[in-house]
């Protein structure tokens, strides 16, 4: 049976879609058959980040409405084996995501794939609720600043009460924290919350820390998931997170300020 994983945050712009693309690609690179589903109906972005926007024919809502079957709508990733994308519809709104429809589509995906990654829209309305409703576990994406942390906290409360598992009395689904856009230098200057500060407030396990990085922007612009940029700090941090997700223990990297050496200081590093 597949693991259905929701990538969520509450707040917008913290890196949910980048993370969905990176984690899904990372899992596929490890030989795990993975589907990544864009729940952001009306504001579809995942196809751009995955670089498959020119191959979208049918979408998630088409499958829900029975206009197309899953096989027709799933896009096979060209770069990575074992990876498929189910794009969102750009012309519809979140009301098109019916509970029965979402359950049926996720059920079909679960039969074929080992992992189903649900890229949640921002907010706490229908789209976000549907993305998490059938999930087995959650990855909460948070930036190290107060409003993002508070929104994540709100989302964790929703995950504890408004998933199918919780409604059936099964309690909260397991959730882990992925801290993105982390800058040790700014933490040092007191301009940004530290890993400890965020964990103190959210009190959930840490899945990974992704450094603030130009590589993420480059990846988005070129439509190549950042994990495929193996030399980049963000790409490596995401690969570490994927390994931890699969149960491996990895030390955290890029979380402390690297002291520049004498020559580094001389030549500006």
């Amino acid at each position, binding site marked *: 049976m597949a693991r259905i994983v929701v990538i969520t945050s509450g707040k917008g712009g913290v890196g949910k879609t980048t993370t969905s693309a990176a984690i899904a690609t990372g899992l596929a690179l490890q030989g795990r058959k993975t589907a990544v589903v864009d729940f952001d109906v009306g504001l579809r972005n995942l196809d751009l980040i995955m670089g498959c926007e020119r191959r979208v024919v049918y979408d998630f809502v088409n499958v829900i409405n029975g206009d197309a079957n899953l096989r027709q709508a799933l896009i096979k990733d060209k770069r990575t084996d074992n990876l498929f994308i189910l794009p969102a519809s750009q012309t519809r709104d979140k009301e098109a995501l019916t509970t029965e429809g979402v359950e049926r589509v996720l059920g079909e995906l679960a039969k074929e794939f080992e992992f189903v990654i649900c890229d949640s829209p921002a907010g706490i309305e229908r789209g976000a609720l549907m993305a998490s409703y059938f999930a087995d576990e959650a990855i909460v994406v948070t930036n190290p600043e107060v409003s993002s942390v*508070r*929104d994540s*906290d*709100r989302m*964790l*409360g*929703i995950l*504890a*009460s408004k998933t199918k598992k919780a409604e059936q009395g099964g309690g*909260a689904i397991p959730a882990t924290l992925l801290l993105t856009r982390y800058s040790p230098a700014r933490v040092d200057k007191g301009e940004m919350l530290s890993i400890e500060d965020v964990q*103190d*407030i959210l*009190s959930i396990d840490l899945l990974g820390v992704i450094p603030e990085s130009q590589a993420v922007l480059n990846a988005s612009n070129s439509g190549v998931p950042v994990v495929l940029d193996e030399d980049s700090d963000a790409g490596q941090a995401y690969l570490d997170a994927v390994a931890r997700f699969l149960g491996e223990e990895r030390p955290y990297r890029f979380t402390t300020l690297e002291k520049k050496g004498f020559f580094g200081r001389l030549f500006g590093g």
Partner: protein
Amino acid sequence: MLVSILRLHTVDAAELDAALGARMAEAPELMRDMPVVADLEGLGPVPVPDLLVALEHVRRHGFKLIGIHQGATATEPLAEASGLPLLVLGGKSASEAPAPRAKPAEAAPPEAAAPVPAVHTPTRVVNQPVRSGQQIYARGGDLIVTGAVSAGAEVLADGHIHVYGTLRGRALAGVRGLVSAHIFCRRLDAELVSIGGHYRIAEDIVDGERGENRLVTLSGETIHITEI
């Protein structure tokens, strides 16, 4: 048992619905099934059938009506027709009693809370962190939260509140008028603390009062925050 008083200022259906709905929406978990006495004294002389309709509105909004108070305007027929006991509220009048949250008086806001001794009910224990946007109310007793109470979360109890993590949200103890209720917390960094309807907002809690092992008590009308 503690009883709250719902003071009606109108029998106009629309106005009453709006006021009751607004009050219930403020804290549905706290108000639902809350035993209340309807104070009809302020209505003046109103025909019994109209009063019965007004009482029905109160019930429909989720309040549990356990009696009526009419003061000088008391009429036996209403008590008989409604099947509710006619109660005489002793001591200070409802308007002097502390309301859970001081709000400017509107057209018909029902006011709450008159202290009467409480019966012991089991303490409610919450083993999950209380997250932003969540509201937890321990009806009739104490509340123990073993984790943190986040900013944007609200914990309420008729009795004491204990928080064994950091209290960053709002904590309201003795919400139905128990002025001897305390709030204990491992670390206080609250948005609001309230006891028996008296409260202090974050802005009025100075840095020195924030910190580890804090006790919040009420003496007279002043909220004190001290180290345990």
